């Protein structure tokens, strides 16, 4: 079974209202008669929430927006509406929840931005260390091996507690180091976010902004891959430490 991500399409600017037959505007409800409108099959989360595709988002403002729209779109409002309106509300309120879930966390936000633009490429060699980390990863693996050897259950002779404690200290240090790296990557992402937001603001007027955006997306994609590699490292060290 194969599956692929979906690609984004812009919400239609204005369509004819199913209920009153007048152009309904591009909102959730008809501007003329106030009836809920059907959801275009592929609606971008940013557009749905009425936000520009900026990556720096004030979390509190986002949550307020989510709550505002929840009051209007939640199925509770439509229990007595017609079957087709109930379906529209279900589609819109699920999209609202999906959008909030995708955009509230910065990492899933940029992942969504990239995949909706067809620019998210998970590394082909997910297990391969980024070059600048090779040395440290090599050291880490050594310590992990030592720790495993020290475990009687693995057949190795039980070693004295001092040696084990030494390995543990090394691992703790490694974990701190990688957590630090993770922080650096997050900082990098943040810088890319503000660059992105600037090009977006310049978007319509600056020639070549499209290319600039593509380049930025590629860099964000690469940074995300590095991030997920380091995160996995931290998790596995954590796991080994807990088991030891």
């Amino acid at each position, binding site marked *: 079974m194969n599956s692929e991500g979906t690609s984004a399409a812009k919400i239609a600017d204005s369509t004819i209202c199913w209920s009153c037959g007048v152009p309904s505007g591009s909102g959730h409800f008809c501007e003329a008669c106030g009836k809920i409108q059907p959801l275009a099959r592929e609606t971008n989360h940013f557009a749905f929430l009425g936000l520009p595709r900026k990556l720096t988002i004030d979390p509190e403002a986002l949550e307020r927006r989510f709550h505002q729209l929840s009051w209007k779109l939640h*199925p509770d409002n439509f229990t007595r509406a017609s079957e087709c309106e109930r379906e529209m509300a279900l589609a819109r309120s699920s999209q609202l929840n999906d959008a909030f*879930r995708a955009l509230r966390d910065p990492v899933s936000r940029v992942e969504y931005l990239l995949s909706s633009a067809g620019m998210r490429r998970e590394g082909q060699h997910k297990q391969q260390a980024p070059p600048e980390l090779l040395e440290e990863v090599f050291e880490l693996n050594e310590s992990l091996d030592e720790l495993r050897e020290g475990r009687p259950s693995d057949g190795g002779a039980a070693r004295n507690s001092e040696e084990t404690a030494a390995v543990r200290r090394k691992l703790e240090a490694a974990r701190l180091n990688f957590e630090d790296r993770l922080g650096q990557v997050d900082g990098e992402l943040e810088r890319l976010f503000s660059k992105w937001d600037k090009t977006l603001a310049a978007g319509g007027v600056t020639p070549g902004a499209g290319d600039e955006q593509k380049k930025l997306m590629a860099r964000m994609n690469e940074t995300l891959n590095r991030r997920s590699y380091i995160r996995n490292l931290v998790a596995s060290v954590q796991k080994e430490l807990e088991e030891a």
Partner: protein
Amino acid sequence: MGRTVGIDLGTTYSLIAYLDQAAGRPGCIPGPLGDTLCPSVVSVDADGSIVVGEAARSRLLTQPARTIYSVKRLMGRGVADVQSELKIFPFRIDAGSQNVIRVRLGEKVFTPPEISSFILKELKSWAERFFRESVDRAVITVPAYFNDAQRQATKDAGRLAGLEVLRLVNEPTAAALAYGLHEQRRGRVAVYDFGGGTFDISILKLISTGEGDIYQVLATNGDTHLGGDDLDNQLLAMARNEIRIRHGLDLEQHPETVQELRKALIAAKHELSFAERAAVLMPLPDGSTYVREFSRAEFEGMVQPILDRTMGPVQMALADAGLKAADIDEVVLVGGSTRVPLVRRMVEQFFRRRPHAELNPDEVVALGAAIQADILESGVKNMLLLDVTPLSLGIETMGGVVAKIIPRNSTIPASAQEMFTTGVDNQTGIDIHVLQGERELAADCRSLARFQLRVPPGPAGLARVEVKFLIDASGILQVSARDLKSSQEQSVEVQPSYGLTDAEIEHMLEESIENAERDFNVRQVIEARVEAEAILRATEKSLSELAAASGGPAGSPELPAEERHAVDAAITALRSAMAGDDYTLIRARVDELNKATMPLAERMMNRVLSSALSGKRVSDI
């Protein structure tokens, strides 16, 4: 259109509640015995009639093979799932059970949704008696940690009971709704719900906005097979063991005694929530008596391992909400088992905060359901509940690995769209397997459903079918598919892994309607016959009194011959109608007899006769 109610369909007790518009607050509706708690026990008589509630509970002792309790444990589960419970619960699973369990009760076999529908029908009748109006729409609560199959089974039960289920609401969330209304709380709330059969923990955020209050669930976790039942079973296992050792008696062959013993132990458990000691005195089949005294400390030592199992889910829920115990502003206790003092101590110690238990823990869930029912019914918009799905939704991919498409604790409704294509040339179908759970492998998750997408034959990888998975506000999955090449919506026939198909439910509904019709007919015939008998008796009595008074059988001035003949003919016609099953015919003949005796009645002084002949009701004579 009838009334809308809120129902707590519990493992041990069920309740029905409504929003009292005049008082502006919810209330539980009492049954005929005046109690608001309806034991979730169902018993089936030899003649097929169904007994529910307190009456059924007393039959646990007299007719255990016809009676079932804790059926909620079987909802939405397969035979393989319940094997371990069968050792503890006296469920008689029918050998014919497959992906839906079938339970034997006396001569008949029922699915868990059918048995639950009997409980719902009973509650519905309580409410209809209370309102003197039909009740046809309901909000029903479910444990927050119920999976899709368990939710669907609950919804099916509602449908089988003749209720339109407007929404399933999670029990802890319903409780929070009731508390919020009661206490006007704000902030972060943990609801610890430990009932008869299930444990739930939900972490909520209460937010005031310009439009009103939002109850947003941040995370939920639990165990759908952990509750007071397990404490009871622990006590029961211990007592049976002691009886085996001390009395040399195996209770295996004495199911009635086991039920008596269970009842006594539960009473002792309840007592220990208030007293330091409790005792059990149990006459045994061999004439001896099992005597046992418990101290609270001993009880606590015995059940501590079971109660400890609630703390894992609590920690998981907090972690998923991104919070620590200290971040919680209020803790709310729900469910009868939170009366156990040790539970309160554990919760208080963990959160370092005295938990709330001001509202009756038995009623609070039903009260919350009634509030939600009112929100849905009247559209009063000053409260909004945003709940989450408790388990991740995934689809099986290559190698039996699960790809998660909707993570657990996503606000519902939630959806995910996935694109599918063919793997080999001229493939005409793509099989999809939907699962729920947190594990990596399909084999370790809960299978929800399978279906096949149809694709026109063509080269591999050319087809494009988009499938939309949507979890609705009740936490139930809907699937729709669209062929992107042809832009055609495709209907998907989802085969539930552990549930009734639509066709099966339709069939059950038809059967129950047929049964109801048959029952109705039988009752009408019986009532018509009883009425006819009474009229015949009264007529004959009058005739003989008249005959005695006039000194001869016929031709008296009070009773002319042709009138007498008309009456005799009507009597004969009625008797022959009474031999048959046609109650409308019986009624018609009763009317004719009444008419034939009318002139007679006018002349009659006899009070009994005149009252009988003027067509008074049997009960008035």
